Each structure stands twice: as structure tokens, then as C-alpha cells.
């Protein structure tokens, strides 16, 4: 006996739901709703049955029914709070998350890193698998190195494309600013979306090889006016410093190892130079925003922010004022949607002289800070015993670290405005067709001055005029402007089709973007305004430009909401290439299968979401190369590089190196991924496997001598691979009325390998060395080699004695030719982590919240340049006859640096494992609820940022963008007290 069940499925607004799946549990009977939301299940056995209704973005429902004959069951679905149906910003449009076919991750305000965040990318540090964000230093406003899936290039850029509200922004730093992104106030940001695989990024074609980060800023909403005020006060403390000899240890060392000359140089003071240059630094960050709408049709949001941050390195500071306006009205009966963004930043910086950090590590702690006399501003300096010396200062000796800071006044003012207006018009007679116009600009101006007083040792008597008069100090200026423009136009057509319950969505467009920078040139002046001879600039300014013209298209086709197809294509033309190679086309295709919506999945209780994604695409790259050098241009030499014939001096015309055949670097990416959900989506996440192969690598290769005006040129030679696995998981461990616990975890494995580097294979050539280090002019410690990862170290193999200590200057003759020379260098480890992780947790209990987020890195190796450069006898007892301080490693290693010193600097002894776990943030907050006579909501929070690092690494900080530890500006530990008040 059977019956049938029919009915209507509606959403929370009583609109019919099309394509919802309905199963009879324990049977194979299933169907989905039609265009009117109706369904019919026939041949259902009579009796008590359980129906399961599923629809993306809505909670699964189970309904007990008693079947006898034909019955009607109408169902209203409830929206899923988990926002599975969240709309995700993609290139040129938005998509439902469930419809995505590419590898895309999105992080919104709720999940941002907390604490005193001054630069936007730090908001998502550690939050997304496959995205490594390493802050460049602890300096105020300093930027980060962002690597998505390891980066795709060698000598071209490895930075992702960043798009703010639809405007791709220049990632080049403006003079006077530490970082281009820090001119955006993080508090104005609503969402980050990271496009990782080619099927997601290929719509950005030529600039997408390193991934794309889409930043969406906050907008107003129709509804009541909302005022938000937040204020943060934070104290940054330098919590770790380089481990160097104390004054007493240095005295012991010199008395043991030095001769009388060196002993006589010892002082009696006990100065901790690192303590002298670092300080506890306070910051405040205040933000006010008002959002709402004028009438019903003009949503707005206006915000202002003021950040005042001092650096832990004395004298450095950042003062930043930001303002942002967003208007998003809908006009003409909702046919015209306008989105207007204008953001402005005015920032004033004072840059501390970071040379002081290395100087403080090396400066003799037995000497006092102040000399007791007025020379050189009163600071102790190493003096030249030669009474005839022009400056009286010991040349090449380090300068007083505190003097370096306090006697240098490097101030800049930077202004930037980014804005765009986006008009989206749906045609009245064809509402499925949208025309979208986006006009954007990004202009900035940075200018500054560097002033060093006459007395400062660092620039004392630094040049002479023709009459042999000396001039001291610095009074210089610099200035740069950038003007970038964007014009984009696309058409979007979406249509539900009558067959197969399918839908087609098509986008086609055109883009023009122009980047222009103006660098102003100035002479070099002493503090009293004397021009240094030969420093008059030849040209008032230089104005490098480049432009991109693009055509792009995308089609999304879905069948039954289960089978999703995406195809994109973009054709780009760049001014950086010759006419023959100017244009390139970047295609991609992807397929996704919503397995969970298949009938055979209807019985699963444990699995609540399951989607398979497969994609392939080709993306390009043109950053990091010259704007014009596809032909040779002649460059006129400066006033200090003239050549003399007779009594005349001539500026010299030099033909530049060129590479006519240069073309786009291309990266082919294959991606296979699974999105999953368990236990009614209390556990969700995704797993992705990818394989990226970059060909026509923009690679600096040697030119055969005599064939070009440059011996090295960036050419399209070589191939490189990145293979990886990404795993992400979000879990709602506890979900109760007053108690919630959320956990997020992600893990990334990436393996990079260079597979070809040269046109002709040459087994005798190890590859291209790079990564300069301190301690030896022209020494490099890393190498690009075929069959090795990009960041491989290239070093000598240290020989150790029976006591386990390195034998001074003794290395393994690896090629057994009886000679130790460059041919004995070998590939040893690399600076990229094998694995990296992010873990965050957040607990809400009644009005309390508490959370943490941490990151970990496994098997990232570091060249400890502080050990190698300072932890040797030759540094402490300097041959130029002054004393330096050094790393305490010298007490363990007993390396002198005098025997085979050039090789010792490249010993694998200094390659050290930098695996670490860093607690980025621990926070606790309390929500007071309604305050001020119920007018506002108040919450306060307390954060500790960079709370601790667990590592075996002996240097100051194992987290380094480039794997070389050379006196990084230390990342402080920061205590943050914040309050939020909203009305």
C-alpha cells in the first residue's frame, strides 16, 4: 500500500523555494521542488514516515508524517544561521558560497584577529589555510609579506593582487610610508575574500598567479541610524632582545682572548645598549562611524579614525587620520544601484633609524652612553687615535646606537585617497541583464625630510667643497606621488532556464588600468644647506608608468543546483611587453558537484554538506619587471658618475640591458577540493589539493657575455612547481543558550621545487645565488637551483670535533678535490616551512567572551646572521682596532672568524631550525549590554597580542619573511584595552 505526499516548500518570507530536496527516510524516494515550490512524492509506503527537507542555506528539516492515501505537507524552511548561503564576493560579482566552484575563503569581522591591528592584512593572519601572512617587523605601520600557496615566481613578484571595493590597488610602497596597505583603516573593513585557485582567480588573468585578495569595506544599511565608537589603548613592550655578552662577560672575553691593545680599549661602564634604544610604547586608536540611511533610499556610512602609535624603538611613531564615506543608494525603482566609496588617509610618520638595532647588538657594553663632553652631541663614540684625523672618529666602527636614533629626524607626511563609483543598472525591459560601470582612482603623495644635526658622528664632516671646507649633517627631502586610474565595464546576464532545472549566469567586460608614479629628485645637502658636490640631480623627476587593458568573461551554469560549471577567460595587454608579446589569454574551467543533494545521500545523518570541486586554469604575472626594457634605452649618468677628458667632465650615455622577447609568466593550477559539513553543519570545512606549475618563469638569467648591455636580464626561462594540501575546519563545539564555543583550525602543506632554470642545462653551474647577508661584502646564502625549493640555503658543511663543537674554519671537502672553495658549497634546508597551522578558539558565556588565536610553523630554517656576524672573535676584537659586542654564541662555538672567515660565514652551523608556535592573541571581553539609560551598548575587552612564542630557535624571533635573521625590528608584546560603544 502506498500513498503520495505533495505540498509547497516556502522560505521564511513565504516565497516558494525552488529546487529544495525532499527525501523519505529509509527509502529511495526523493524529489525536488519545481519552479513554483511544489513537490510530489509518489508511491510512499503508508504508515509513519520521516521526511527530510534540505535546501542550501537553510536548516535541514525532518518531519514526521503519517501516510494514508494522498496527503499534503507544506513546509516552511528556516534560515541557517551558519550562513552556508552566505554571499561571497568574487571577481566582478558575488556568488552564493554553495555555488562556488573554486577555492575561495572568506573571513568577516567576527573572525578577524583582535587587538591593536594597524594594517589590514593582519586581520586575517593565521585564519586561512594556504595563506601565510608574516609581518615584516615590529615597527609602527610596517607591512607584511603575504604568500598564497607559496607564491608562483622567482624574480617577478610573489605578492597577491589586492582589490579594494573593486579597485585593484598598487602594491608599491609610496615614499614615506612603511607599507601601502597601512593607509587603509582596518576598522573600515567588512570582509576579506581570498581567491586561491586558478578557477577563482583567472578572471583577474594576468595578475592572478599569486592569488587575489578582495577587500570589501563596510556599508550603510537601510534601517535605524547606528553609531559605533571604539577606542583602544595599548602598551607595546619589547619582551625579547638579542642575547649578547654583558659588560662583565665582554671584559672577561677580551682579557682572555685579546692582546694589550684590545684590553686597553675596555671601558668600565655597564651599558645594556638594547635597553637604551627600546622603550615601552603607548598607542591609541579611536574610531567613530555613523551608518544608516537618509529616507529609505540612501544608505550611508561615514567613519573617521585616529591612530597614534609609538614604536618600541625610540623616536619612531605613526600618526594616522582616516576618513571613509560610503553611499549605496538604489535609484530608478531599484534598477540603478550606486555604490560610492571615498577613503582618505593623512598620516605623519617619524621613522626611527633601524640601523640602531644592529648597532645596539654590536656596541661595546663596557662603554658609557654619554662621553661626558659635548663632542658629537655628547654621545660616546669610538675615536680615532690619529690626531690628524679629519673627523676624530674611528672610521668603520659602529656609531653610538642611541645617537643614531636621537640624532636622526626622518619625518614624512603621506596622503592617500582611494575611491570608486560603481553603477549597476538592470535594464527595465530585460531585468536579468545588468550593466556595471566602475570608475576608480588611487592617488597618493608622500614627502618627507631627513635632518641630522651637525654634531652627529654618523655624518660628521661628510663632504668637502672645492675650498676644502668640511660640511656636516643632513638636510634632505624626498617626494613621490602616485596616480592610478581604473575604468571597468561589464555586462551580467543571469537566467533560469526551462530545462534540467538549470541556470546560466554570464559576465563579460572590459577594463583599463593605468599606474603612474612620479619620483622627484633632490640634491644632497648638509645641515647648513650646502649642496654636496656632484649631487645635483640631472632631472627634476622621473615618471615610470605602466598600463593594462583587459577583456574578460565568465559563465556559470548550474544544473539542478547540483552540478555547477564555471568557465572564465581573460585577455590582457600590458605596456611592459613588446607589441608581439603584449597580449595573452588566461582561461580556466571548474566543475563542482553538490553530492549532498544527491538522492543517495538522503539517509546520511552525520554528513550534512558535501561538495566536490575540480578546477584548472592558467594565470599570469607581469609584476617585478621593468616598465620599458623590451628595447634598449640610454641612460645619462649622474653628476658624481662623470668621466674626465682633458679638463672637462662628461655625463655618460649608457645603453641599457633589454629583452625584446619577454612575455607573460604563466602559472597553470589544478585544484581538487571537498567542502564538508557534519552534524548539521556544526562542523564544516574544506580540504584542497593543488598543483601549480609556473612556466616561462620571469627569471633573472645570465646573458652570454658580449650579447647584451646587461649581464643579467629577467627572461622567460625556467619552470617551477608548487604542490600542496590545505585543510580547514570550523567547529561549534558547544552550542547552548548562554554558552558557545567555536574552534577554527587550518593547516597547510606546500612544497616548492624549481624544475628548470636555464635554457641549456649546465650541471656544473649550481644556479643563481641570492640573499645578501651581513658580515662579508657580496656574500649570499641562498640559491635558486634546479630540483631544489626556491628558498634553499647554499652553505659549507661544518666539521665538528669530538666534543660536538664546530672546528674553527674547517669544512667538509664535499667534492673531494683537496681544495675547499665554492665548489664545496651544498644545498641544505630551506627557509619555507614544511607545514604551517592556524588555530583559534572563541568562547561566549553569558556576557563574557574569551578567545585566542595562534599560529605555528614547522621546519622553517633560518640563517642566523646575528650569530654568524657578531658571535665570532674577529667581530669582538675587530681588526680595525676597536671592540664590538657579540652574540653569546661565541662562548659556545669558539669560532674565531680568522681562519677561512669568508667560508665560516657560510657555515651550515648557522642554519637553524625555526619551528615555532606563536600565540598571536589572547582576549577576554565583557558585554555590559544596555548602558546610558538604555541608549547604548557597551562592551570592553582586554587583549594580549604576541603573548608568547614557543621555539627552540636561539635568535630573537624565528618568524622571518626571508629566512635571514639580521637584526629584525622585534615584534613587541602588546597589551590592549578596548571599549566599544554603539547606539
Amino acid at each position, binding site marked *: 500500500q502506498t500513498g503520495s505526499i505533495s505540498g509547497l516548500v516556502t522560505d521564511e518570507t513565504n516565497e516558494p523555494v525552488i529546487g529544495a530536496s525532499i527525501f523519505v527516510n529509509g527509502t529511495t524516494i526523493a524529489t525536488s521542488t519545481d519552479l513554483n515550490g511544489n513537490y510530489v512524492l509518489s508511491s510512499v509506503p503508508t504508515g509513519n514516515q520521516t521526511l527530510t527537507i534540505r535546501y542550501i542555506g537553510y536548516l535541514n528539516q525532518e518531519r514526521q508524517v503519517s501516510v494514508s492515501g494522498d496527503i499534503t505537507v507544506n513546509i516552511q524552511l528556516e534560515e541557517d544561521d551558519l550562513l552556508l548561503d552566505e554571499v561571497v564576493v568574487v571577481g566582478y560579482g558575488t556568488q552564493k558560497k554553495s555555488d562556488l566552484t573554486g577555492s575561495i575563503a572568506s573571513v568577516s569581522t567576527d573572525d578577524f584577529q583582535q587587538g591593536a591591528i594597524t594594517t589590514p592584512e593582519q586581520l586575517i593572519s593565521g585564519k586561512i589555510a594556504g595563506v601565510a601572512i608574516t609581518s615584516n617587523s615590529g615597527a609602527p605601520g610596517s607591512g607584511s609579506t603575504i604568500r598564497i600557496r607559496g607564491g608562483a615566481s622567482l624574480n617577478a613578484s610573489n605578492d597577491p593582487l589586492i582589490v579594494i571595493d573593486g579597485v585593484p590597488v598598487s602594491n608599491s610602497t609610496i615614499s614615506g610610508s612603511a607599507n601601502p596597505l597601512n593607509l587603509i583603516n582596518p576598522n573600515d573593513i567588512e570582509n576579506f575574500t581570498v581567491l586561491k585557485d586558478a578557477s577563482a582567480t583567472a578572471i583577474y588573468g594576468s595578475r592572478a598567479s599569486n592569488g587575489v585578495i578582495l577587500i570589501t569595506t563596510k556599508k550603510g544599511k537601510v534601517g535605524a541610524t547606528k553609531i559605533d565608537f571604539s577606542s583602544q589603548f595599548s602598551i607595546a613592550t619589547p619582551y625579547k632582545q638579542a642575547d649578547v655578552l654583558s659588560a662583565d662577560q665582554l671584559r672577561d672575553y677580551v682579557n682572555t682572548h685579546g692582546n694589550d691593545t684590545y684590553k686597553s680599549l675596555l671601558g668600565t661602564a655597564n651599558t645594556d645598549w638594547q635597553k637604551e634604544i627600546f622603550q615601552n610604547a603607548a598607542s591609541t586608536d579611536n574610531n567613530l562611524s555613523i551608518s544608516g540611511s537618509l529616507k529609505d533610499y540612501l544608505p550611508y556610512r561615514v567613519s573617521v579614525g585616529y591612530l597614534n602609535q609609538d614604536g618600541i624603538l625610540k623616536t619612531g611613531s605613526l600618526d594616522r587620520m582616516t576618513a571613509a564615506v560610503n553611499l549605496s543608494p538604489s535609484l530608478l525603482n531599484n534598477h540603478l544601484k550606486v555604490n560610492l566609496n571615498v577613503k582618505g588617509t593623512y598620516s605623519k610618520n617619524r621613522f626611527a633609524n633601524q640601523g640602531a638595532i644592529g648597532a645596539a647588538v654590536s656596541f661595546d657594553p663596557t662603554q658609557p652612553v654619554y662621553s661626558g663632553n659635548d663632542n658629537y652631541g655628547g654621545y660616546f663614540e669610538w675615536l680615532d687615535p690619529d690626531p690628524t*684625523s679629519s673627523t676624530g672618529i674611528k672610521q668603520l666602527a659602529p656609531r653610538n646606537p642611541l645617537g643614531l636614533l636621537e640624532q636622526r629626524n626622518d619625518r614624512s607626511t603621506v596622503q592617500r585617497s582611494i575611491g570608486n563609483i560603481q553603477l549597476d543598472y538592470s535594464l527595465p525591459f530585460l531585468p536579468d541583464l545588468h550593466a556595471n560601470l566602475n570608475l576608480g582612482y588611487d592617488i597618493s603623495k608622500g614627502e618627507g625630510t631627513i635632518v641630522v644635526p651637525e654634531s652627529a658622528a654618523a655624518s660628521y664632516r661628510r663632504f668637502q667643497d672645492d675650498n676644502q671646507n668640511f660640511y656636516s649633517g643632513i638636510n634632505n627631502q624626498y617626494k613621490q606621488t602616485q596616480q592610478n586610474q581604473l575604468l571597468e565595464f561589464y555586462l551580467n546576464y543571469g537566467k533560469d532556464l526551462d530545462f534540467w532545472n538549470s541556470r546560466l549566469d554570464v559576465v563579460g567586460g572590459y577594463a583599463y588600468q*593605468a599606474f603612474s608614479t612620479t619620483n622627484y629628485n633632490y640634491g644632497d645637502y648638509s645641515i647648513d644647506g650646502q649642496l654636496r658636490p656632484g649631487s645635483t640631480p640631472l632631472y627634476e623627476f622621473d615618471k615610470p608608468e605602466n598600463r593594462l587593458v583587459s577583456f574578460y568573461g565568465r559563465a556559470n551554469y548550474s544544473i539542478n543546483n547540483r552540478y555547477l560549471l564555471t568557465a572564465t577567460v581573460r585577455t590582457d595587454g600590458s605596456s611592459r611587453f613588446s607589441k608581439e608579446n603584449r597580449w595573452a589569454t588566461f582561461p580556466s574551467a571548474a566543475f563542482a558537484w553538490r553530492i549532498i543533494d544527491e538522492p543517495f545521500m538522503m539517509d546520511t545523518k552525520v554528513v550534512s554538506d558535501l561538495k566536490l570541486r575540480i578546477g584548472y586554469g592558467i594565470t599570469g604575472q607581469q609584476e617585478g619587471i621593468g616598465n620599458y626594457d623590451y628595447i634598449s634605452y640610454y641612460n645619462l649618468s649622474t653628476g658624481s658618475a662623470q668621466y674626465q677628458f682633458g679638463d672637462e667632465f662628461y655625463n655618460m650615455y649608457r645603453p641599457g640591458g633589454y629583452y625584446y622577447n619577454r612575455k607573460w609568466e604563466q602559472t597553470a593550477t589544478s585544484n581538487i577540493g571537498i567542502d564538508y559539513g557534519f552534524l548539521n553543519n556544526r562542523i564544516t570545512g574544506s580540504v584542497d589539493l593543488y598543483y601549480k606549475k609556473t612556466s616561462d618563469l620571469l627569471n633573472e638569467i645570465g646573458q652570454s657575455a658580449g650579447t647584451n648591455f646587461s649581464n643579467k636580464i629577467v627572461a622567460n626561462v625556467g619552470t617551477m612547481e608548487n604542490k600542496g594540501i590545505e585543510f580547514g575546519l570550523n567547529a561549534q563545539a558547544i552550542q547552548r543558550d548562554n554558552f558557545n564555543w567555536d574552534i577554527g583550525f587550518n593547516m597547510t602543506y606546500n612544497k616548492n621545487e624549481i624544475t628548470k632554470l636555464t635554457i641549456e642545462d649546465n650541471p656544473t653551474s649550481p644556479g643563481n645565488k641570492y640573499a*645578501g647577508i651581513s658580515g662579508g661584502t657580496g656574500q649570499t646564502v641562498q640559491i635558486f637551483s634546479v630540483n631544489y625549493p626556491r628558498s634553499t640555503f647554499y652553505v659549507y658543511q661544518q666539521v665538528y670535533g669530538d666534543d660536538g663543537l664546530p672546528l674553527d674554519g674547517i669544512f667538509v671537502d664535499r667534492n673531494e678535490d683537496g681544495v675547499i672553495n665554492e665548489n664545496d658549497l651544498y644545498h641544505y634546508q630551506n627557509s619555507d616551512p614544511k607545514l604551517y597551522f592556524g588555530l583559534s578558539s572563541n568562547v561566549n558565556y553569558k556576557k563574557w567572551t574569551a578567545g585566542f588565536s595562534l599560529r605555528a610553523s614547522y621546519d622553517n630554517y633560518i640563517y642566523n646572521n646575528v650569530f654568524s656576524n657578531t658571535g665570532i672573535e674577529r667581530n669582538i676584537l675587530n681588526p680595525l682596532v676597536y671592540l664590538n659586542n657579540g652574540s653569546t654564541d661565541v662562548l659556545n662555538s669558539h669560532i674565531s672568524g680568522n681562519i677561512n672567515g669568508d667560508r665560516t660565514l657560510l657555515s651550515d652551523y648557522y642554519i637553524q631550525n625555526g619551528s615555532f608556535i606563536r600565540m598571536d592573541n589572547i582576549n577576554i571581553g565583557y558585554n555590559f549590554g544596555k548602558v546610558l539609560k538604555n541608549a547604548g551598548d557597551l562592551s570592553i575587552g582586554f587583549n594580549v597580542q604576541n603573548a608568547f612564542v614557543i621555539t627552540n630557535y636561539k635568535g630573537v624571533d624565528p618568524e622571518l619573511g626571508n629566512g635571514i635573521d639580521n637584526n629584525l625590528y622585534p615584534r613587541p608584546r602588546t597589551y590592549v584595552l578596548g571599549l566599544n560603544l554603539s547606539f
Partner: protein
Amino acid sequence: CTDKLDLLPTNDVTADIVYSTPEGYKQALAKVYGAYALTGNTGPAGNKDIQGSIDEGNFTDFLRTYWYAQELSTDEAVLGWSDPGLPDFHNMNWSPTNPALTGLYYRSLFQITLANDFLRQATDAKISEHGITGSDADAIKAYRSEVRFLRAFQYWVLIDLYGTPAFVTENDVLGANLPQQIQRADLFTYIESELKAIETELLDPRTNEYGRADKAAAWALLARLYLNAEVYTGTAKYSEAITYSKKVIDAGYSLSSDYRHLFLADNHKNKNEFILTINYDGTRSQSYGGTSFITHAAVGGSMPAQSFGISGGWGGIRTTENLPKLFPDYSGTADKRAQFYQDGQNIEIKDISLFTDGFGVTKFRNVTQAGVAGSSLDFADIDFPLFRLPEMYLIYAEATLRGGAGGDKATAIAYINKMRERAYTNTSGNVSDINLDFILDERARELYWEGFRRTDLIRYKRFVENSYLWPWKGGSKNGQEVASYRTLFPIPSDDLTANPNLKQNTGYN
């Protein structure tokens, strides 16, 4: 819309613009010359000619790297720094990736490439195409011969140090094909034929602007080439060496009165003795190489910087005991050419890394004859003579002793005594007889630290052999012989990688 993609640089220009005026030709000529004086187009550094991770100041300057190769590999100099590859010179264990040898090779071929470009742009057809006529056109034709001289000079550097370099001339279309490797004997023939071809076209001796090549420069290079012909080709050419050294000697040059004025900030006053110089200027021609390097690197220990016209020394180069021991006394009391700094310096070298081991050398000082410091305390004004008259005397004498025709020993002795009379300021140092060993020693006394020593020791078969040792030769304290293939430096790995036509010199594979 796509023509928006055609962009031009703001300040840099194309060849058509550079070579449209006589001034442009001269500024291009300045670069062909300037390529052996400076490291790039911004002084002292920052816009370098030789690219890559190679350090601009240390490893891409012509004179600095040439000096490393010619002096650090011999008894005349040791260097205490631990910069990569530099200790290898004295240890005589350099490899094909040695950065100084790489930089020097590319520097030489860079100047050659510039010369080829200039010659392509300065054909008669091109000159008239640009509407340049009359004396302007004649001047450019004169530049052409000088540029060919500079190219021949750099090929001489390459034949002497590397033997078998890549070979390109103005007839090779730039970038069209990979250059072929030239064998040493063929390169000898090429250099000889080039110099003979321009011998008549160059301006007469001492009539060109200071710093530019004339006939005497070509003769001087031919004399030097012929003196070493047996090393380069296996066939001796001592008669030709005599002929060409004599041409220079008879061209009107004379010795300056004071040897100690030859390497000072105002040494351009020695135009009577200098045949061709690399010109340096402390404010207008700045680099970290050239005579700035020699002056700064030689000052360390207790040497007073101010008396060297510099703000401070770099504490690097000294000499082994072999050089001072060639002189009757270390302090130059008798022979003024002995310019050593002994105060606090040990003559014996126990530790090469210690500046105070080994005598300092005070030959190069950035002060004028009047004792006034040069125009900058950081960059020297001292010009560097590539050719000066005494070398021609010495070539004449040596070639005569080696059996060349056309010379006679009495004249040779007279030439030698001219040098010695200047050195001793009287005739007390005069000699009445000379032999080949004496000439080698006299070359060291007269020309030390001027970049000759390696070539001389090879010609005398004392560079790699056990018959002549110096402290730390081959990395051993008392010195030791090294493999004979080290009389040539290796072709740099970088060029072997870029150009499969090249084969490595024997011994370095």
C-alpha cells in the same frame, strides 16, 4: 584603446636621439672610457653596469678586480678581508664562481660590448645620416679608433688572465647568436691586427685630450703584448717588443722628477710620463673601486688616515716580505721607491687576517704634492696610469736580454739607470750590468702595486712553480707550488651556463 599600451620612459632615450648630435657621440664615448673607471651610472654606486647578486663596489670595478687578480695572487700583496673569494687569490685555489674573477670578466666584455655598439653607431653612413659633417664628423671618426683601442686593451686583459674568452665584434648582431670562444693564439692575432690597423688613425702621441688614447697608447700595448707573446702563443716576439717600446720611448715622453709624486691626488701633472690614464675624481667620478680602493684598503693599523687624504682606512692590503726585501732599505732612504709603513707592522705574516702582519704600502696617497687632501676624503682623485714610460724602458731591456733584434744592452742599461737615478735622486744606484733576474726585480721595484706582478711572474715561470715562493703562496705559510693550470684563470661559471659554445680552461672542470 590598445595604443595606450605604447609608453616611453621619461628621461631615458633611444639610440637615435643619443647619436643625433656630436655631443651625444661624445657622451657615449665617455661611457666607453668610463666603463673602466666607474661601476655604474650613479656615483659612487646604485645604478650598476654589472648586474646580479655580485657586489658593485667590491667585484664589478675594473681596476679593483684587475688589481685583486694581478696582485693578490702574488708576493706583492695580501688582503685580510673575508669577502667571498678574496682569500682564494693568495691561497691560489680560486674557482670558476669566484666573484672578483666573474666581475672582471664581465667588466671587460661590458666595455667591449659598449665599444661594439659605439662602432655600429659611428659608421660613416650613420654619421652622415645624422647630418654630422666637417670637423664634428672627423672628431667622431677619431673616437672610433680610440674605441677600437679600448676594445683591444680589454681583449688583452682577457688574453692575459682568461686566455680563451667569448669573442664579439661590431659585426655580430647584438643578441642574435651566442658568441664563439676564441683561442689564445687567434686572439693574439686579432689584438695585434686591431692595434696595427688603428696605429696610424689615432692622434699623434701627446696631442689628444688627457685621458684619451693616442698612437703611443697603441704602441705601448703592442710592446706589452709582444713581450708576453711566447706565453700567449708559444712564439716569441721580442724584436717586435723592442720596436714598439722604442717607438713610445722616442715619442717625446720623459720621467717626472719625483717618483713619490706619481700616485698622488694631483698626479695628472705627470702627463710627460703617463701614456694613458684611467681618470678619477673624488667628487665627479666616484666609485668604491679604482684608486679609491687602493688608497683606502692600504691604510690600517696606526697609519694616519689624514696623511693619505682619506677619512679612514679600510685596513686590508699589505705586502709580503718579498717586496721590501728587494730594496736596499725598507724606509726608502736610498731608493725612494721603497714606500713602506713599518710602525706597528710586522714584516712577517703569521696571520693574513691581521692588518699589522706585513708592511703597509704608502705609494698611493690622496693628497697633492703640496700635502693637501684631495677633493673628497672618501673618493680618491688619483689617476691610474695604465701605461707609463718606465714600463717601456723595462720592456726594451727585457726583450733585448731575451734576444730580440733591434735593441742593444747599453741603451737598455741607460734606460734602466734613468729610472734608478730618479729613484735614488742621484747616480748612486746606477747599474753597469743587467740580467733577466735583475729586470724582474726592477719591475717589482718600479711597478709594484700597479697590476703587473702576476703577468711578470708567469713570463718568468715563477708564478705556480716551486722555484719561487712567498709567504702563504698556495695557502701554506712558507709558500708552496700549485697546479700549473693556475697560470690562467677559469672562464666564469656564469658565462659557461649562458653560452654553451664556451669550454672551460684546462684544470677547472
